[in-house]
Every structure is written in C-alpha cells, then in structure tokens.
C-alpha cells in the first residue's frame, strides 16, 4: 500500500487532550485545518494516512508510540512528513526519528514559529 500526498490535511496524534486541542487551535490561527487523533491506532484506523500531508505526533503514548507509528507508515511505503513533539526527547531518540525521515523533532513546549514553518514546509513539498 502506498499513499499520495496531494491532500493538505494536517494530522495531530497526541493522547493529551489539552495539547491536542490547543495544537489544532494554533494551526487554525495560522490558517491550517487539521484533524486530531487520540492514539496512533486511531489514526491508522481512520484511513487518513492516505491523505495526510503532515503528521504531528507525540512519541510516548499508551499503545503504539510515535516512533512505532513512523516505522509502520514507512513499512507501508507511506512516507508522511512527520513532526515529532515530545516531553522526553533525548538525542538518541531524536537521531532515530530524523533518520527515519522525520522533518522536525520538537521538545515540548515548543516555539510556534518553528512548528508552523515546519508544517508549511511539509505542505509545500
């Protein structure tokens, strides 16, 4: 299975309600529409991996982690530009994520300019 990135959907995967909702609002203020998912499993089950232009995901989540999600998408030949946001990020994790094709690796809390630029860059690919 492969996916095309013609669509402009931004997907947000984070298990924390507040982070998820405020991220969606931030993107809306910056002019991007987005869809939120409570878990990696939810995202995969929604079928939106097919039309997602940019994925913003937490790393540590119950069930499948953000890194596992990335691996899974890669194995499905679905390389979505992915921005990781995490509170636990260490260098090793960052290196692993970037090597697997992440476009950005942001520690929480993050600078909105950096995030928005990354999203914009992902969408303009």
């Amino acid at each position: 299975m492969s996916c095309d990135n013609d669509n402009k959907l931004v997907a947000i995967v984070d298990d924390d309600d507040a982070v998820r909702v405020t991220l969606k609002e931030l993107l809306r203020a910056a002019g991007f529409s987005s869809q939120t998912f409570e878990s990696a499993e939810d995202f995969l089950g929604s079928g939106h991996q097919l039309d997602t232009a940019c994925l913003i995901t937490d790393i540590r989540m119950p069930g499948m982690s953000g890194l596992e999600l990335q691996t899974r998408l890669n194995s499905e030949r679905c390389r979505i530009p992915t921005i990781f946001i995490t509170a636990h990020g260490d260098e090793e994790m960052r290196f692993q994520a970037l090597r697997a094709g992440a476009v950005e690796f942001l520690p929480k809390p993050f600078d909105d300019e950096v995030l928005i630029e990354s999203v914009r860059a992902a969408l303009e690919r």
Partner: protein
Amino acid sequence: MNQIIGLKWSAGPVTSVPMRYGLAVLSVAVALGLSLAFTHFQLPQTFSAFALSAIAITFWYAGTAPGILAAVLSSIIRSYLFEPTTSTQSRVLFDLAFLVFALLMTQVMRDRNQLELRVAERTAELTHLNEDLKREIAKHNQIEAELRLSEAYLAEAQRLSHTGSWAWSPPPGDIRYWSDECFRVQGFDPKEGQPKYEVFFQTIHPDDRARVAEVIESAVRENREFEFDYRIIHPGGEVRDARSFGHPILDPTGGLVEYVGTIIDVTDRRLAEKERERLREAQADLAHVSRMTAMGELTASLAHEVNQPITAAVNGASTCVRWLTRESPDLEEAREAALGVIRNAKRAADIINRIRSISKKGESTRQLADVNELILEMIALLRSEAKRYSVSVRTELNAELPKIMADSVQVQQVLMNLIMNGIDAMKDVDGERKLTIGSLWADKRMLMISVSDTGVGLPPQHADRIFDAFFTTKSHGIGMGLRISRSIVEAHGGRLWAADNFPHGASFHFTLPAPVEVGA
C-alpha cells in the same frame, strides 16, 4: 405454822430432802452432845445457846422446814432433859423465845434467798453484758482487720500508681495527713514525721515555686479546686515530674475545713510520652523519606505530567498572539485562546501543588477526605508513569462512599506505593498490562481500596515477607514501601494485605474505617 405466818417454804444451800432434815436432827444432836459433855465436866449449862446455834445453822443450810423441826426438837430436849422441873410458865416463855428465834431465822432466810435471787439476777445480767461486750469486741476486731486490709490495699494502689494522698488546711493550719506514697513521691524520710507545708514547698523546683504558690493561693482565696504540674528535687538531686490535685472540703455554711488531694509522680508517664512522640516523629520522618524516594523515582514522569499543561498553555498563548497580530485582529478567538491558557496554567499549578503536598514534611493531620478523590488525584499524578510502561489504568469506584477521617498525604502515599508496585510488576510482562483501582464497602464499618495488576504476582515462597522491612525484589528501592504503607494503614485503624490474582498478577487491599455515624 408456816402457813399461819405467811411464809413461803424456802430451802437452804443443802438441797436433798433427807440431808436437810438429817441436818436438823444432826445439829440438834450435836447441841445435845455438847451440852451433855458440858454437864459431865460440870461446866455451865448452855444447851439453849447450842440449840439456838443448831437452829440457826439448820435454817441457814437446810431451809425453813428443817429449821422449824430443829426448833421443835430443841424445845422438846430442853423441856424433858435439861429442865424437867421448870414451871410451865418458864417453859412456854422459853418455847416462845425459840419460836421468835425461828421466825427471825425464817425472815433471815427469806432475805438471804432474795439476796441470792438478786445476786443470781445480777450475775445473769452481768453474764449477758459480758457476752455483749465480747461480741462487740469481736465485731470491733473484725472491723479493725477489715480496715487494716483496706488500708493495705489502698497503700498498695498508691504505691503502684505513684499517687500519694494528703489533707491540708491553709494557714494558720498545716498539713494534716500525708500518706506513705506522698513521702516517697516528694522524697521525704518518713522517720522525720509528717512534713510542714514550708518543708514541702522547699522541695519544689525553684523555677516552679512562684507559679505553684500562685495557683494554690488563688484557689484558696475562692475555695476552688486546684491542679498544677511541678518538679520535685529529691534529696539526691534527682528531678521528678509531679502533678497535684486539691479539692476543698467545706462545712455546711460554706466555710473551708481543709483541702484533700493527691500528688502523682508522672515522671515515667512523661518519659514514655516523650518516647512515643520521638517514635511518631521517627515514623513520620521515615514515611517522608520513603515518599521522597518514590517521588525521586517518578521525576521523569512527573516532569512530563507538568510539561503537558505547560505545552498546552504555551500553544494557547501562541494562538492568542496570532489572532491578535493578524491584519484584522480577532478578539473573540484571542479571548478563547487566552481562557485556554488560564485553564492549562492552572492545571499545571494543580499538579505542582499535588507534588508539593505529597513531598512536604509535616505533622500528621487528619481531616475528612474523599477516598475516590484521593485515588483519582494519585492516578492523575502517576498517569505518565503508567503511560511510560504502557500500563492502562482503570477505576472501579463506588461513588456512594462516605468521606473518612484520614491524613490525605499518607493515604495517597499508600496508593502511590501500591500503584508503583503494580506498574513495576508489569514492566517486564509481555501480555496485558492493566492496573485496576477500586473502592467499595468492605463491611458496614470499613471501606476497602484495592489495587490489582496483571504483573508477575507475589514472589513465590516469600509472599509472607513482602511486608517485612528491607525485603525487596526490585533492583532499586530499599524495601520499606509496603512496610511503611502497612504502618500508615494500621495507624488509621485499617488493614493492608496482599493476594495473588488468577491467572496472573497480584492484588493489594487495604481498609479504612468509615465515620461512626455512617454505615450503621
């Protein structure tokens, strides 16, 4: 003749009839013999005198009837043996003299008998009185023995309880009674006798004297009770803690008669209290150290837990700025975003406060607490830790449970310990990792809180040792968690125990007493 003179027959000391009349005959015979002997030796004729004696003796010893017989016999003997020639006139005169003598003797007999009767009565009376007296003495002795026993028991009770009793009347009076235990407590030598009030006062610690004097004087002024603590300096220099109570005894008009009271040596009790206090402090310190250790292990998770709302708040603030700095600022959107910032910043502050309250070191204070709230707060705090090890947390809470009197921090410490143990037990489990926390009624008086996991279960062969100090199966930790948790639960009047789950995992349950008015 007796009936004629109205006399009652009365008997003398000789009682048998033959002996009484025999005595009459014998005494007259003796009188006759003596007179015959006198006549033979040509001594003056004295039969009359002997006869009168014989009559008197007979009356005295044998009674009235034999006496009269003796008189008649004597009269006959005198008439026919000694004075056969005497004229009838003289004989009659003589017989009359005998008769009068016999009557007199009869009267004497009667008086003697009455006297004997009175003596007998008095004797009986005295015997009776004597018996009464003996009974009285016996009763008195018994009461005295009982009193002595009672006094011995009281003295023993005073000795055992280090409580002496005293009686004292304020100046110009002095100490009136001072029990043995008072001597011991106050450090006086009983050989020196009952102490004077001033002497008692001198044994009080100099720093306490003024206060004690003030307490006593003000109580005496108003005839009130008094109570004070003070220190005693014993002759050897030892300082003892004591407490004295005094109660005024008033006469019916309300005037003060005296004070009665006690002196109690409370030194040992006070030392024990201090020891208990030290132990409580040590336990609180240990519990605190244990909490801090647990919090230390949780640092990463707690940081994450605080970081989430801060991230959300920063997102909200960024959003707010973006709405405001647009070409056409959207105030309504900006306001919404700003409200979100407040909400999330508060959430972060709440978490920090929760961490701080768990970390704080302080006196154990019990207040009404909602068990379910405590559980939910602790789950919120440990959510990141659970997430870190992919543990799902479920609650089965009975919303109807009453609030309980408890030290919230300590109960949360127990919950934290059990939840972290549960997570720990599931870290290396491949299957399901599920932690279930429940609250329910154990019975009418007890609430029960359970923490169940699907981990490795209790250590085989050591299930009974998990509550021992320093027993641990972990590579980290000092093995005090469950031990401290159990002591906290027991200090609250509950119980903490563990059981294996089927097919895997373990459950820890603890009970806490419900308030008395609930659950009846």
